[in-house]
């Protein structure tokens, strides 16, 4: 029998090892799997490479993970946001590495990782400092840069609801990186607000097919990052 449900967020992240590459969903707080990230803080794995569009806000969620010195490298497109304090501070001190990737290239590299594409060419970043050191190549008279697919050991993703096969649906623009990150990780770990019966999601409406999901944990009322930040909450 297939049942991807895990009983606790602690159990869901228990086997993450030091040095792992971890993709973390979300665009700002929308889609950020805050309970899974906090479980990873409790778990304590260190020297992580984190792939995520941003670096978190305040002192909760991804920012707290970074603040806890568990992340040695960030791969992201926009490491500073309105309430982003932790990453900038560590970065200026040279205590965390940054690989800056244009947002669409980041998305495509993740999708390529999940699709078995080791590399592809894009016009994005050609003639900029972000293309330095990368292979440049002409196709049909236009210049492109070669970019590599990214895979991860784990991905932490948040969605609206899922079933025991791991089929997922998302909520509005909180979908963002979740579907592609599920495809690119050896072990994708998803927190959903609700468990649905098998068949409750119309087969035409499934966004992430269950094949891309390894573990599903139900977190019925996830915390809102902006709420925690406005209350100046800290984790742990």
């Amino acid at each position, binding site marked *: *029998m*297939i049942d991807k449900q895990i009983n606790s967020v602690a159990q869901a992240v228990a086997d993450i090892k030091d040095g792992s590459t971890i993709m973390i969903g979300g665009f700002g707080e929308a889609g950020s799997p805050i309970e899974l990230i906090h479980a990873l803080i409790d778990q304590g794995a260190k020297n992580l490479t984190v792939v995520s569009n941003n670096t978190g806000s305040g002192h909760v969620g991804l920012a707290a993970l970074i603040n806890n010195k568990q992340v040695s490298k960030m791969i992201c497109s926009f490491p500073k946001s309105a309430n982003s304090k932790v990453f900038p501070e560590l970065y200026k001190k040279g205590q965390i590495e940054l690989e800056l990737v244009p947002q669409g290239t980041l998305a495509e590299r993740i*999708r390529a*990782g*999940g*699709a*078995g*594409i080791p590399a592809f060419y894009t016009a994005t970043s050609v003639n900029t400092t972000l293309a330095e050191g990368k292979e440049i190549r002409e196709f049909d008279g236009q210049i492109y840069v070669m970019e590599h697919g990214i895979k991860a050991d784990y991905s932490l993703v948040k969605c609206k609801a899922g*079933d*025991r*096969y791991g*089929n997922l649906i998302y909520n509005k623009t909180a979908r963002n990186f979740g579907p592609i990150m599920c*495809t690119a990780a050896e072990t994708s770990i998803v927190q959903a607000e609700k468990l649905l019966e*098998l*068949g409750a*999601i119309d*087969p*035409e409406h*499934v966004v992430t*097919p*269950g*094949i*891309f999901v390894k573990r599903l944990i139900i977190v019925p009322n996830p915390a809102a990052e902006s709420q925690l930040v406005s209350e100046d909450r800290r984790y742990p």
Partner: protein
Amino acid sequence: MTSKGIVEGWDRAQMAQRAALDIQDGAYVNLGIGIPEMVAGFVPAGREVIYHTENGLLGMGPTPEPGQENQELINAGKKPVTAISGACYFHHADSFMMIRGRHIDVCVLGAMQVSKDGDLANWSTGAPDAIPAVGGAMDLVAGVKTIYVITQHITKKGDSKIVENCTYPLTGKGVVNRIYTNLAVIDVNQDGLMLRELAPGITLEFVKEKTDATLNIHPDLR
């Protein structure tokens, strides 16, 4: 020497049944056209297996009842199928992400030839007047984690389909993990072919005689 038309060892259903024993609970499986399709019917009770068909369905169910066919719900062989509860539809690029990205656990395919190194030829005779048609075979062997082949051991003409080197154009090189024939179960590993099981009434000598490749014999040969 086998007389043509006489079935030796396992019949088609039995070959499928034998292969089905190796499909694990929870596996995501893609079944090729022909005998491989029959595997689904023989997976042991208690195992839940999800079937992928590369034309855009995960959670393929059995053939519909007569009169219930829907020409927009078909498998990769273009035959009407059903969808199980918990199924999902997707477009072709997403479907082959599952294949190329190594998300499918097992693919069971037919073969024209399999070599001692696990090379598979199953798409073209290479005949100059043949219409070449590859479909998803090359994607499947390149991307799926485990490739099983189900095939008659010898052709209708009496030639071995298990060979030192394929003479037909390859589908993929070093891709096959296990071969189920009407005579035997043979693993492909680093050292070549490893004979694991014999079909009832089939002798080791007979299999060796019918195989145009060196066979290592597993110590626990059954």
